[in-house]
């Protein structure tokens, strides 16, 4: 199979520090080995997407919705989703008094 060509505009190197920061923002615990691997992989992926930086988009607005829908509203009334709180809590790892139980947030 032929390899498809892609343009590397500039290699902005992602540092080990960057990966640790991204992992922390993403709430992912990474091992040192993983940090190393992701540093290499993200560097090449970011280099690939950087080809967008040279594209002329003068006079164009960004698109976030493609079918032209705006402000889809509904009447403010109770909808019966047919699901009870007990059913929703069935998958909870920890619960108490019909509520989700989580670890203490404020020390």
């Amino acid at each position, binding site marked *: *199979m032929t390899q*498809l060509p892609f343009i590397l505009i500039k290699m902005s190197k992602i540092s080990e520090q960057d990966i640790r920061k991204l992992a922390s923002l993403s709430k992912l615990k990474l091992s040192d080995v993983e940090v190393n691997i992701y540093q290499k992989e993200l560097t090449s992926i970011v280099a*690939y997407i950087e080809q967008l930086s040279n594209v002329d988009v003068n006079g164009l607005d960004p698109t976030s919705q493609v079918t032209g829908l705006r402000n889809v509203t*509904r009447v403010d009334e109770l909808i019966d*989703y047919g699901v009870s709180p007990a059913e929703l809590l069935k998958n909870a790892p920890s619960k108490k008094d019909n509520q989700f139980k989580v670890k203490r947030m404020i020390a």
Partner: protein
Amino acid sequence: MNWDSIEKIAENVSSGKVTAETLVNKSLAMIDDTKEYNAILSVSKTRALERAREIDAKVKNGEKIGKLAGVPFIAKDNFLTFDTPTTASSHMLENFHAPFQATAIVRLEAAGAIMVAKSNLDSFAHGSSTENSAFGPTLNPSDKSKVPGGSSGGSAAAIALKIAPFALGTDTGGSIRLPASFCGVVGFKPTYGLVSRYGVVAMASSTDVIGPITSTVEDAALVLDVMSGKDQFDGTTIDRDTKTYDGKPTNLNGVKIGVVKEFFSSGIDDEVKKVILDNVERMKAHGAEIIEVSIPSISLSLACYYVLVPAEVSSNLSRYDGQRYGLSDATAKNLDESFEKSRAAGFEAENKRRIMIGTYVLSSGYYDAYYKKAQTVRTKLINEFNKVFEEVNYLVGPTAPMTAFEIGKHVDNQLQMYLADIMTVSANLVGIPSISIPVEKANGMPVGLQLMAPQKADRDLLALAAAIEGQKE
């Protein structure tokens, strides 16, 4: 063992000629016979047989069932369903049992269809080969050493293996069409918003769509007809066509079909190119007007996609925090550690990669350079498609630049893996309908021909695809 057309199956069940129970049992037997392919993750045996017997009893009572009476189907394991777990092929949701069903499932069941099993996918639908599944890859039915494509690889393989008459997939950047192409079946990606996504595990909300994988275009149209239309639980849904989506072939005479130049430039496998161009010649012989068109920004679409989709992924996957459902680390000493350890154990490498790329492009200082820029390049791409659609009714090209590749070939090179989607992502970014239909083989493996139409022209696109499907010699 083949299946009749969906229309015929429903007719036979409705008239009492065949029982739904027989059909479900046939499907269950096929699941047992094809286990080595790892297309199926879980089976809904009890509920499927119960529903089949209910339907058969109703038929005996003279009650009317619906358009899909007794038709067994497979749902990709990112659709919330009763009875089976909904895992998204992840350890995160390995033991998750949905408290409600997806709208698509509800509508199909109301029409008499019976879900028999859930199919394998790349974890959280992140991938192009189904190798990113937490439960092992699915094997290609045409060659077990090759991937089935992804992310709906289990669904496409299930149809190629004749496990059921139809399967459901999701398509964020090609996840229905690519595996359909690699496995030699029909895969349809509708206009953005035509099918409700309520109750489907979200990946990238601005491009995610739901669609059918089938053996024929007509079958795909029938399934779409049942699933499509507005849903109060999904605010992005749009009105469906007032006419039935029937997938009856149109006449090619005078139809203007644009051959997208960029799809045939460097990088495409020679044999794939020949098969597609032979088909284009045949369309011409049947009266279609073939016009070469250019959409220059297609060359940017993959880079655009790999900014926007990880950004949306990082946001959508933040809900998996190990507190309300899903994998939860029991050793964590505080809440933050519970988030970090649960997510580390619940996600596959590709999930983590995309979450971090998304977090990167959305970071303060980078947002304008990456995310906003990609959204603006998206506008440029949309404008170019709109302009071309002033000149032609449809677009044609290959679904993928290659046929199915060997298992393991690209697992260590994400960019090469991402390039499998280079011809499919544009339709997602523009929100238009697109279909992959099997044509002749190349390198001994199936090839998909891709057709695209303007937004909301789903009905016409299916009619065109049916005509091209019929012209195979």
